[in-house]
């Protein structure tokens, strides 16, 4: 489903070249539940954003369902992100000026194709499913962190994506709430049949996934150090 072939991503910090991701090749199969495990600065987030098509690789190929997407235009990439990928972030990343419902409906505004569902109904159903329907008219800063992350998950699910990319989704939460979010992640994979890629630095979190990809200094490594 997702295939990375010798993908590298370099940044420039002033004059200095930073090799965030270096010659990474990996493959993720449909409906997999995997984690990308690495310490801070290991390049795991960059790797996730490359998979999520928010970053262009400096070199190498990214194949999505066998199609090379590393050379697509901004328009095509945005369209794929909209319909194919859902993001969940450490800091929730909801828009505070918008209500919960408006946040959840945001991806619908950017869809270019036809959608086979009623956005309002789907939003309501998902909000109910994750127990935050009664918060739908609240603004994000008026609800708890766990609730905000659920809203973010509903937003990520809105367009019926094939992949959910979660970047330290429990990082800003206490352990109990974090566990609940991880339960949801697991059910996304099991019940919704979505590929879930979990990026984390916590081995305990990664242990809950079916497969772990270790990353160190921008390279795939055999084990977590």
């Amino acid at each position: 489903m997702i295939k990375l072939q010798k993908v590298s991503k370099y940044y420039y910090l002033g004059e200095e070249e930073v090799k965030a991701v270096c010659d990474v090749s990996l493959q993720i199969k449909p409906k997999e539940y995997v984690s990308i495990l690495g310490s801070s600065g290991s390049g795991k987030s960059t790797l996730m954003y490359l998979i999520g098509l928010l970053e262009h690789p400096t070199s190498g190929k990214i194949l999505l369902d066998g199609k090379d997407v590393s050379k697509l235009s901004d328009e095509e990439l945005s369209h794929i992100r909209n319909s194919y990928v859902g993001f969940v972030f450490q800091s929730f990343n909801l828009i505070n000026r918008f209500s919960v419902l408006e946040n959840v409906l945001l991806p619908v505004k950017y869809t270019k194709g036809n959608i086979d569902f009623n956005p309002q109904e789907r939003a309501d159903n998902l909000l109910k499913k994750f127990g935050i329907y009664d918060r739908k008219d609240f603004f994000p800063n008026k609800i708890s962190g766990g609730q905000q992350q659920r809203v973010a998950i509903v937003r990520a699910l809105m367009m019926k994506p094939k992949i959910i990319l979660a970047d330290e989704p429990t990082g800003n939460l206490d352990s109990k709430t974090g566990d609940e979010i991880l339960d949801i992640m697991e059910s996304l994979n099991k019940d919704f049949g979505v590929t879930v890629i979990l990026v984390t630095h916590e081995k305990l979190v990664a242990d809950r996934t079916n497969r772990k990809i270790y990353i160190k200094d921008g390279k795939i490594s055999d084990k977590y150090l």
Partner: protein
Amino acid sequence: MIKGNGISHLFKAALTDFKRNKLRTILTSLGIMIGVLSVVMLIALGLGLKNYIQEQFEGLGANLIIIMPGAGFGGDGGGFGPAGIISGTEFDEKDVNNLKRISEIKYAVPLVFQSTNVESGANKESSYIMGVNEDYFDLMNAEAAEGALFTKTEAQSRTKIAVLGYTIAEKLFEVPDNAIGKTIRFENQRFKVIGVIEKTGDNEQDRSIIIPYKSTFGSINPDKTFWSIYLGVESEDNVEMAKQKAEDTLLKRYGEDDFSVTEQSEILSTIDQIFAVINGFLIAIGSISLIVGGIGIMNIMFASVTERTKEIGIRRAVGATEKDILYQFLTESVMLSAFGGIVGLLLSIVIVLIIRRFFPASINALAVILALGISSAIGIFFGVFPARRASKLPPIEAIRYE
């Protein structure tokens, strides 16, 4: 591209944002509002001034030819040359008589013109002396409101009699009827009022004291010369011919550059030309404030882009293209300036309606189109830079921005 309903969705989103930030919205569009207000007002006043001056000249009656010393109106320069009125020759009675002999010319009126202070009893007013002959009243279509106008015999006889403009009669005697038979004093001379002419609407005319030109000979006009000669032509078809003949007549005594013969339509077209320049100039001045307003919008939009960097990142992550972001910010800046433009336009319409009571200011289609067109254009022009910056933000950096 954006979806079919994209435009209305963009407008709605921008409107919702404006509602959340009412004060900022109003302050931001204030610059454009003032800019549009000043442009429209300056155009309205420029047009008003032009209308006013045109009315004054049209009030002189059609088929009028004005002879002035020097280049006068029009001429090659197409303006009131500074040398024109001052230099050149001065005309005398012989010229008037020569011009009167031209068959196409019905009236020939010598004009002695001077500003003065007039007194009656304890009242003192500033006024104008107009020394003319009896044809003047026919030429100007002036009728007596009270009393009588002077006749040919009286005009030729140096009699110290005067016909007052309506306004000056009111100022001096409260009721114009009271003026008849009274004595007024100006330039150390006493004149008896024999009539008051009807109000013309021309301020200068209504404040004038009209006296027989011969009575100015002496201390007022020792050289017995005229400032100008007005000619009235019987029919419009003969104006060109009469003008030509008048020129030929005067050339016998004066050089080509010493005088000018101008018909009214030429004066009107000269006024048109002058005001085209003045209006252009006024628009240019008003546009400065429009540009300043545009820069204000750009400033706020840049601030708004920075403030919403994270939001831009989030939108990009859920599928917004660079264009979507560009249009989002562009819509906001265009709406801000269009809003300012519309409010500025409405305000100026209200102001123009109020000042119309005193002054013939007017708003034309050009002003409306200019106001709305320019304000939208400014919204686009000054909105493009912030919107481009927003759309070109790398999504990752935007999302991580705190």
